[in-house]
């Protein structure tokens, strides 16, 4: 029985355990269309595992994960989920290091993904336009010919975000986008993510509290694989349990 939901992403009662360790413990989150949501929590709280479940990398032991109310994410594989419109930026930048920035963007460009299409594909002017547009949006216009491996850590993060944009996903899962960025870059990233919300649904996992503050959105605090608190940042940071486990005294 599939529950009726208007959520873009509906996670209910998810549990995952690795060798007895409960990475997710009855986790429930749902994202409304166009929402921007920050997920925080200490190391091992289950943030990455949650993203792994949503993107099909890890199968949950129990629970429901629905996309747009009808697609069961627990039975689809990574490729199917990506093509449904869930894009992911990894915690560790994982651009293709032996391809140039432009080629990385080209790979991400939305479109048919079959081998035959890949052989026959010729980039149209509008493809170049959208690639250039994204490149300038993430500040990599001058680095188009550089190899992915030659970029700085921050630039790799930007490139990943740019690739995510070109995939034109409905949901963006963004894992620690600000890691390795300077303060001004961090703010720029926050602005970018904020501008994406509305049109896209965005879930950001982050450690950096300043960054979360800059996002100014609803926050979900994870701890030991479950949701500890949910609400605005001032609301959750005044929660005693949250202060105990995460923010510290």
């Amino acid at each position, binding site marked *: 029985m599939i529950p009726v939901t208007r959520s873009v992403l509906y996670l209910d009662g998810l549990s995952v355990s690795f060798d007895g360790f409960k990475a997710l413990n009855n986790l429930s989150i749902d994202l409304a269309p166009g929402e921007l949501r920050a997920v925080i929590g200490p190391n091992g709280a289950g943030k990455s595992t949650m993203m792994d479940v949503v993107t099909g990398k890890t199968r949950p032991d129990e629970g429901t994960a629905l996309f747009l109310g009808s697609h069961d994410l627990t039975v689809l594989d990574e490729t199917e989920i990506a093509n449904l419109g869930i894009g992911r930026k990894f915690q560790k930048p994982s651009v293709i290091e032996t391809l140039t920035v432009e080629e990385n963007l080209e790979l991400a460009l939305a479109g048919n993904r079959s081998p035959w299409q890949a052989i026959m594909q010729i980039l149209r002017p509008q493809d170049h336009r959208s690639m250039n547009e994204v490149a300038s949006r993430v500040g990599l216009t001058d680095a188009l010919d550089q190899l992915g*491996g030659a970029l700085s850590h921050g630039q790799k993060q930007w490139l990943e975000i740019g690739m995510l944009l070109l995939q034109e996903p409905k949901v963006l899962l963004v894992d620690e986008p600000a890691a390795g960025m300077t303060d001004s870059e961090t703010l720029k990233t926050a602005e970018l993510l904020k501008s994406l919300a509305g049109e896209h649904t965005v879930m950001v996992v982050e450690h950096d509290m300043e960054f979360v503050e800059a996002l100014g959105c609803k926050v979900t605090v994870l701890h030991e694989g479950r949701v500890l608190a949910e609400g605005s940042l001032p609301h959750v940071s005044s929660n005693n349990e949250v202060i105990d486990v995460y923010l510290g005294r």
Partner: protein
Amino acid sequence: MIGLRLRQLVFASIIALIAYVFLANVMFPASMGVALDSYSLTIVGKYLCFAILAVALDLVWGYCGILSLGHAAFFSLGGYAMGMYLMRQIGERGTYGHPVLPDFMVFLNWEQLPWFWYGFDAFWFAGLMIFFAPGILAFVFGWFAFRSRVSGVYLSIITQALTYALMLAFFRNEMGFGGNNGLTDFKDLLGYPLTSDGVRVWLMLSSGLALLLSLFLCQKLLATKFGRVLVAVRDSESRTRFLGYRVEHFKLVAFVMSAMIAGLAGALYVPQVGIINPGEFSPLASIEVVVWVALGGRGSLYGAALGAIVVNAAKTFFTGFYPEAWLFFLGAMFVISTLYLPRGILGALEDLAQQVKGKAPKLSQEGLS
């Protein structure tokens, strides 16, 4: 730029070789002294076939990260398809004089031709089988292996098992491929005697053209987005999946193409050496191909071709003059290339040329990950 020029140099050398043989042996055979004798022709033709096989392996290993240790199997299947055609061409001239059955079948008291030998009297059919036999095997094998996400060293091991299993199967007389002795005593190809100089020249020229064609086709393919997806799979397979690419389909297409090219190499090889037997399936044969590619320069089709020719020329030299030193030399080449030439001969030449030009070596796109 320099890498490009070196590649053009390899390509141009092959063209020059073909042009030389064409002029010296076909157009002006009368002007003595410049034409290659049939021994050299066959040797060069063999090297060219090995170079095609190396290009085939480099397509999947160098660009897609699939380390196949069973490529000799596809080479041999192509060779067997050609061998079967050549056997049917013998006709009544066999030792037992049977109009249809090859000698080994008469010897085994077989009454009629097994069904899978039908059609091999026609060259066009054998010509298709040269591609289809290895292609279908690669498709079935790759379908299951890539779908189950077998990769890395596990995939290498099962490709070894594949070629080993085929070797054991082809050794059996009941299989109907001549057992231990394989297929040999060939007489004609398309009605022309195989031992004639003319046929040898044309076989060598065809091998050269086939090498150019496979280099050209693979390069064209790799220059498309397909090639970039392959590189992405090689360097970050899971990332490519999250981008929405069906990695197993891309691997399968590359693997089947590679197997077909290897089959073509085998088919050109067999009439030049005059025999195909199950020994060609030996696991060692496949590993040798990996050494050629590694030594020449993995991830550069021209390097792979160069490696095959260099190693095999060295093999001819050493086994002729210092037979006991050959295996030591092969081992030493592999160790040296792993330690000092991580991008193979071609990569080292590129770096050298860069240094001479006084530029800092740029991280090559085709470098190892």
